């Protein structure tokens, strides 16, 4: 009985003294933190993906509070809605940013791109990229080993087993850019989502001359310059034997898709085309 009492008193006394010391120490060394940090952080999606360029949502919240304007800050996951919330908390204004989405710029499915060798090494794109140029003749195309799939925290990109190419789930993609960094072939690009999710892009990265590119893959860009000529908005440029559509100039008129001889230019989410009359004589004259 006595023993229990002594222990209780001693421990109680030690605890009380420590609590008093801790109380004063905490007072003395208190660090003032802007309460808005927590408020902003609470408004963020808490994905901690790093897509904004800061280490996690807390880092982004601190950056938002400290920054003079929200001009260059954007949370790709939350989008405009979240940024509006952040702006209201901080009493700042934010311009509406066009939502972006990841697109895979390779159309070399197994049918289009015959395999010339078999790779049985480590199933990791970066390791395969270190060793050789790929199982097909195209040294720019997708390796199909799924580094992008592993990198995605939102379950938005998956390798299609039939085509061995990654496919992006637009609903889930937050355009955080993790897959862009993960791809050793630099195939994935963040593009404007476009009205009604409609987009046009060149689904090829092959920088070889036309005949060589065509030999290794049926749907490669052969830099024939047809799209460049037909584009009324100068949105298409060709560098290193490869066409590129600038999404800020593109008006989605789909003229380039029609003229592309290899179907390397892809249109997404457009309604099916109306069946047109046979090519008019005028068009022939132009070409």
């Amino acid at each position, binding site marked *: 009985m006595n023993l229990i009492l002594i222990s209780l008193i001693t421990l109680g006394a030690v605890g009380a003294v420590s609590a008093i010391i801790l109380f004063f120490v905490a007072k003395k060394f208190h660090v003032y933190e802007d309460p808005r940090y927590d408020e902003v952080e609470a408004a963020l999606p808490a994905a901690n993906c790093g897509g904004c360029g800061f280490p996690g949502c807390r880092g982004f919240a601190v950056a938002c509070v400290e920054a003079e304007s929200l001009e260059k800050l954007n949370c790709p996951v939350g989008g405009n809605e979240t940024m509006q919330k952040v702006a209201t908390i901080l009493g700042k204004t934010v311009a509406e940013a066009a939502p972006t989405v990841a697109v895979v710029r390779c159309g070399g499915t197994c049918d289009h791109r015959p395999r010339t060798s078999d790779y049985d090494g480590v199933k990791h794109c970066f*390791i395969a990229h270190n*060793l050789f*140029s790929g199982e097909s003749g195209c040294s720019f195309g997708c390796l199909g080993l799924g580094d992008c799939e592993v990198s995605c925290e939102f379950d938005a990109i998956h390798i299609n087993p039939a085509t061995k190419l990654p496919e992006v789930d637009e609903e889930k993609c937050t355009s955080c850019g993790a897959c862009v960094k993960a791809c050793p072939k630099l195939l994935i690009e963040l593009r404007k989502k476009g009205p009604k999710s409609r987009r046009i892009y060149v689904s090829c990265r092959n920088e*070889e001359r036309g005949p*060589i590119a065509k030999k290794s893959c049926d749907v490669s860009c052969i830099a024939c310059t047809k799209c460049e000529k037909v584009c009324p908005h100068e949105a298409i440029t060709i560098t290193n034997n490869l066409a590129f559509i600038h999404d800020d100039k593109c008006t989605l008129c789909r003229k380039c898709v029609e003229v592309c001889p290899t179907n390397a230019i892809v249109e997404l989410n457009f309604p099916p085309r109306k069946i047109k009359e046979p090519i008019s004589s005028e068009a022939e004259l132009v070409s």
Partner: protein
Amino acid sequence: MKTFRIGGIHPKENKFSAGKKIQTIELPKQVVIPLSHYIGTPSEAVIKKGDLVKVGQLIGKANGFISANVHSSVSGKVTKVDVQLDATGYKRPAVFIDVEGDEWLENIDKSSDIVRECTLPKDEILRRIQDAGIVGLGGATFPAHVKLTPPPGKKAESVIINAVECESYLTNDHGLMLEKAEEILIGIKIIMQVLDVKKAFIGIEANKPDAIKLLSNLAKNYTGIEVVPLKVSYPQGGEKQLIDAILRRQVPSGKIPIEVGTVVQNVGTVFAIYEAVQKNKPMIERIVTVTGKSAPNPGNYRVRIGTMLSELALDAGGVPEDTGKIVGGGPMMGRSLMTLDVPTAKGSAGILYIQKQESIRKPIQNCIRCTKCVTVCPMGLEPFLLMNQSERNMWPEMEANRTMDCIECGSCSYTCPSNRPLLDYIRFGKTTVGGIIRNRAVK
């Protein structure tokens, strides 16, 4: 017998083509001469489509400090300068030449007479080596003249000739030593003259007793050259391992052999230097071993640079039916080839056919912490740790654990009982960490 002190393995030697005479294969109809080397900047083409070239004519000029000249290995007409898939698995610039006859430049001495005397001054010798585009034939194809010019303030005390050939299957250096022993010794004398050293060691593994005997007998006529027989162990042919085996000196991490007062040259390079200095012959051919357990005719072949490996394979009896993988080089350091339609480069040491049942990778299992990889690593690294860090993208930690010291010998992957792809991951980490270090240096 001497050997290096840390790690090492002893894979089955399988030297089927040992002691076979070097055969010269027929001139091909077309050659594709690569303008790029394994390391360094690609050379710049100095000829254009339609030009007529002779054997030994300069077609690619060195472009930068670590780069070497490229010469035509045949006479004929240049059909194009384009990209060509090479043994690295990537398309790189190359010169395509259609062969017409076999016309050599007049100043090249084609005969097999031995020219013993070399009275040229040091600068002239170095200039000839540089002009001839000599690169290290050990595998890394580092330009020889750069290696023979020590950085200011550094002085070599000795030179080591790497005649170890520790890779299984390969016998091209062995064949060369048996046939060109005298020339090799003259080549060593020339290197000693350039570096102004009094001592040279030739390191040969004990599985080549005929070469040791021949070179030891001949070396008696040359002062300062000593043949050092070495205990068979892989990777003894690694520069740092060989220095440790012969001189018992350790090259510090991240430093080159001149730091411990020595320069290492491959025996094939020595022969090429002899030919360049004494016979004015640039690097236009090399010896390639074609071998494998079911190879119809394993042997050593003298091949003009730029000959397609498929033609060489055909001349050597064709590809055996049960081949699962074809490796360019030795079984440990070589790279698996995507196709045989790649040109012979200066660094191509061999074609190795691996049988189907042997070529299949075994399933990867968990690490059982047996530390076999740590025991065999010749650089004293911890491969299992580096692999784990590479898998988790821990680059600063990898750098701190000296991943850049890895010589990619593959001993760890060879010895792992769980078939873990240690080297694949370490090589991946090495590339990434190397990039980070270069970026830092630029900043």
